[in-house]
Structure formats: structure tokens, C-alpha cells
């Protein structure tokens, strides 16, 4: 359904050209969840924002590549057409629920907006639909809460409202950028359960951006690991988590603590990611990689297939 091919998003600033997204390709089918993981600054969010045409402008622009939704390019759409795509077919949940709601509009207005704009519902119909949506997200007494303002809601409730807005117009694709980092564990569990239920019922495709592997394990069918603007490994979740092939994926998995694992000492990854304004000529992970060879300094590794739908870009796999 969504096909991203060799996407490059570059920033032009006084420091030169920053290759934030540097040749990213992936696909996402109906009813499927793809997890996008990596350290901050690796290009996850810019990739997501460029899909809905909201990457920061004029600082950055899509220099090459293709984004297709159901076989049609969305890069050539006019602003007006793109707005329609954003409302009706793709929606996005941003990281911070406390700042993504308008403080002066009632909850009902905000949840109902996509319905009135994109589904042509009148006031009464949209009101009923909003009540139903809020109820599905376990907001108590939705009939009265509808007329409240965001500050009257707790953080967890606000995030559920943001979830309700993003699902209101019944989109085909949901992009969720760390949707649960601001939530408490119990509220997070409830939110994820709801998202799964909606997905099952409507065949929603989800692009899930997170750095939390426990969420990846629970939510995603496939995972793509990003490093310095490139996808370095991608594969089915269970396989990638149990037998990671790229040294970066391995290092990342060994560096995060887990409730399931206990107190065995963690391996931290030394150094820090390269600047996007000054990427190494060869493999971008080479300076931090414990398996680095001469050839890694010379040229960026090709993508090697390891198994069914599982591939990684590392010379070790040749």
C-alpha cells in the first residue's frame, strides 16, 4: 500500500548539506505494522514527516526518491490534494500529546474536525461519532467530556484524545511517532491494545516509530533499523530481534535493558553517530563498529539478503 523508494531528504544550512534521510526504501501493506527504530537524529522522524509532506521547509527538501500510496505518487500532488491525503488516508500521532492539542478549542471540536472536513458530516452526526470514538478509547462520560477543554484532561486522557483524532476519519495508514513515550506504563498498555484492535477491525497499516524494543516486539510485524539516514537492517520482528545480522542492530539490542532480561551487564555502544553534514565515505557505522575492516572505510556496503524478507547492509554478510 505504501511504497517508499530510495527517499533522500536533505537539509541545506550554513553548515552545508545535511543528509538526514539518505536513500531509504521500505514498503508497508494493509493491516501491517512496520517498526522504525534507531537513535535520535538517525532520520526516523524526518522520514515519517516527509511521507505526509510535513518535513521542515524550506530548511529541508526531498531531493530524490519516490513515495507511492496505492501505486500513485504523492510527491507530485498539489498542496490541496496533499491536504486531502493527510486528512482522509494518512494520519499521524505526534510524540507529545500535551502540545498537539489546541488549548482554546473543546475536545469535541478537535476530534470532530477531521469528520467535518474530510467526511462531510454535519454537526449532529459528527458529535455522535465523536462520542463513540471517545468511548472506544475509554474516556469516561464522553457525552459531557466532549465540551471540556484540553487542560481539564489528564496527560493519559489527552493522548487518547490525540489517538481519537488520528483515527476519526478512518485512515488507511497511521504514522505513530513515539506515541507512548509520554504515557505511564498502564495507560501505554491500554493504548497499544486499542490500536491493535482498530488495526484488526479495519486493516489499518501502521508505521510505528519508537526506540523501545519491548513495544516493537508486541506491536510490529516487521522492523527497519535506521542509522545515520539509512536503513541498515530490515526483517520480520521475531527473527530480527532473535538473530540480528547488522553489527549496529546487535549493539543496539545489547545496550538496552529489558524487564525480561535482568541484571546481566549491558554493552554500551562507544562514540556517537556521525554528523549528517559530514558522513564518512564508507559505512556510516564503521567508526563505532567492532568488526570494521579496511573495505568498510572504502565503500558503503551493499544490501545482502539473509532470509525471507530479511536483509542487512554490511560487508560481513557478503
Amino acid at each position: 500500500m505504501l511504497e517508499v523508494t530510495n527517499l533522500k531528504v536533505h537539509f541545506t544550512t550554513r553548515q552545508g548539506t545535511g543528509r538526514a534521510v539518505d536513500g531509504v526504501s521500505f514498503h508497508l501493506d494493509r493491516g501491517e505494522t512496520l517498526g522504525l527504530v534507531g537513535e535520535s537524529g538517525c532520520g526516523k522522524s524526518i522520514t515519517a514527516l516527509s511521507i505526509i509532506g510535513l518535513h521542515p521547509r524550506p530548511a529541508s527538501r526531498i531531493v530524490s526518491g519516490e513515495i507511492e500510496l496505492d501505486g500513485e505518487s504523492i510527491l507530485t500532488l498539489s498542496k490541496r490534494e496533499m491536504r486531502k491525503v493527510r486528512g482522509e488516508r494518512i494520519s499521524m500521532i505526534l510524540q507529545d500529546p500535551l502540545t498537539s492539542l489546541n488549548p482554546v478549542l473543546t475536545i469535541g471540536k478537535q476530534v470532530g474536525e477531521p469528520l467535518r472536513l474530510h467526511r462531510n458530516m454535519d454537526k449532529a452526526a459528527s458529535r455522535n461519532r465523536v462520542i463513540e470514538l471517545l468511548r472506544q478509547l475509554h474516556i469516561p462520560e464522553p457525552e459531557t467530556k466532549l465540551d471540556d477543554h484540553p487542560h481539564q484532561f489528564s496527560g493519559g486522557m489527552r493522548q487518547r484524545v490525540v489517538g481519537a483524532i488520528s483515527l476519526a476519519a478512518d485512515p488507511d495508514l497511521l504514522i505513530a511517532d513515539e506515541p507512548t513515550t509520554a504515557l505511564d506504563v498502564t495507560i501505554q498498555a491500554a493504548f497499544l491494545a486499542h490500536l491493535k484492535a482498530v488495526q484488526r477491525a479495519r486493516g489499518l497499516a501502521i508505521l510505528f516509530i519508537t526506540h523501545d524494543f519491548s513495544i516493537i516486539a508486541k506491536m510490529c510485524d516487521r522492523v527497519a533499523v535506521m542509522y545515520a539516514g539509512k536503513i541498515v537492517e530490515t526483517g520480520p520482528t521475531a527473527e530480527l530481534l532473535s538473530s540480528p545480522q547488522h553489527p549496529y542492530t546487535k549493539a543496539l539490542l545489547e545496550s538496552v535493558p529489558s524487564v525480561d532480561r535482568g541484571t546481566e551487564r549491558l554493552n554500551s555502544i562507544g562514540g556517537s553517530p556521525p554528523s549528517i553534514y559530514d558522513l564518512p565515505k564508507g559505512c556510516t557505522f564503521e567508526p563505532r563498529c567492532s568488526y570494521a575492516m579496511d573495505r568498510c572505510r572504502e565503500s558503503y556496503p551493499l544490501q545482502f539478503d539473509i532470509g525471507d524478507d530479511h536483509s542487512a547492509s554490511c560487508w560481513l554478510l557478503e
Partner: protein
Amino acid sequence: MSRPDPIIGVRDLKKHFPVGGGTLLPGRGKKLLHAVDGVTFNLHARETLSLVGESGSGKTTTARMILRLITPTSGRVVFEGEDVADLSGARLKHFRASVQAVFQDPWSSLNPRKRAASIIAEPLVINQPLPKAELQARVEELLAAVGLGPAVMRHYPHEFSGGMRQRIAVARALALNPSVIILDEPVSALDVSIRAQIMNLLRDLQETFHISYLLIAHDLATVRYLSDRVAVMYLGRLVEVAPSEELFENPLHPYTQALIAGSRSTTMVDEEAARLLASDIPSPVKPPSGCAFYARCPVSVAAKSDDPTFYERTVTERPGLIEVRPGHLVACHQFDPKD
């Protein structure tokens, strides 16, 4: 199990904040927010005790009372046998030097106008004046302890990454050879790949300097990695205290069970359980008179029809913290021997 005297003892600690009444006349309102509502625990030498719980559970307020940054409404904080509230003069200075803190956000906890060297030297300059050369040597020693070279001394906080800043905050906390460091979400503001570095550093420092940590965190994976014992807070009260391994393998309180299930990568909470859990935390302005968790608790909700007497108790009677196994305490009517 008898243990030597704790370094810090917290005894029935309460903090009630007045709410309402406007900003001009704060405290005129009649309502009280029960931020911390009767908390008792000990922190022993060389151990890491974690306080876990969701936002608003009173973890940070408890820590601030221990640090004597705010005054408890009632209850006591005992340090080396003395009530912290009674300390003054040299004893207070000793307490301030011995109990240090590292905060969540290394962007706001370091003075942007000071160089790393003077940030780390400040506690020394105030508490134990040293000749310049010795001071410099001590700062270098502290930097080395947190894995930084002397070259960083001349730099300002904005020149450092989050991980380096947190190392500087830790070096400052170590300056006066404290016996206790309160770590308030020490890694949650850091990038995933940096967290392991700081957590390993904290473990190594504890080993080298024999420090006790009181760790405040909401991320259970971090807690499991660093803790010897864990105390779970909910709505200002302790609901379960146990050795870390035991708590994660055999949680007894339904709230602890929900927290752990939510953090595991293997368990997906089902819709019904999710609906219950998603009902929001009751207001600390009007805390329930019975068990604080009853409205979200699957056991209590199931008892509503199956065992009305038990349900009644969860609603009306506040469960006490009972030791069900050596070192494992839980506040839940299910484990109350009165049944």
C-alpha cells in the same frame, strides 16, 4: 532478618499540599492534595532501592522531603539516627554533604554560565576549602572517576552531549564523598544508546565508592538493571516492597503485576484488562478511603459480583503493608491474614 541500622529511615512520611484558593492567597483553599500519604521504608548501606510508580504517585515529593528541600506535613526522615528536620549547623552541613542528588535533566541542572571545572568544584569550595592545586587535582580525579578526561574542564555545559552532562552532574554529586545519592530519573532524558553507558557508570561507582542509591524511575527495565530492592508507589502510598529479583519474578500486588506486564515485550494486555487499567488514577485531592487501586483492580472488580464482602473491604478499608515473606511486603487485602 535483622540488618544494621539504615542510613536513611523514612517513617510514616506525609506531604499534603493545599490546593485551590488562587495564586494570590495560596493555601486558603480547604482542599488538600495528598501527594505522599504515609510512606515508611529504609535505605541501607551500599544498596540501591528504587521508588517506582506512575506520574503523580509521589516518588519525587518523597525524594524532595528526604533531601530536606520541602518540609513534611507529618512523619520523619531519619539520617544516621537523627531526624533531618532537627539538624542545624555542622550536623546539617554533614547531612547536605552526605546526601547528594542527580536530577533527570542534565540540560537544566548545570549552570550554563560556569565551566565544567567550577561546576564540579563548587561543593568542594563551599564545604572544604582546598589550596588551588589540590582542588584542581581533586576535580581531575572526579572527572576520571566518571570517565572524562581533564580536557573537558574548561568547557561550558552547552558544549557537551547529554551523556557527558550527566557524567558531570554525577561527578559533582561525588565531590564530597557522599554516602547516599538520590537519582531522580537519571537516564530517562538520555538517548537509548547513551543510557547503558550511564547505568554502567552508576553501577561501577557504587562498587568503588560504596554509595547507597535511592533511584526514582518509571522505566522498569532501568529499575531492574540497577536495583537491589524495589518499592512500588501508587497515589502517595507504598503498595509493594520486595527484593528486585523477587518483585519481577513474583509480583503480588495487582498494580505491580500490571506495571510489569505492561513493560514486558512478550505480554500484550487484552482489551478488557486494558479498559480497566485505562480508567484514570483517582484524584489525590480526594483519595479513596479503601485501597487506592480498587477501581482499576481486576481482583476487586471481579469480587464485586463474586464476593461482595471482599469488594466492600477494598472500597472502605485501607490495606496495611504486610510482610508476606522475608523482605517482601505488600498492601493488598488478598494477602491480609485477617481473612
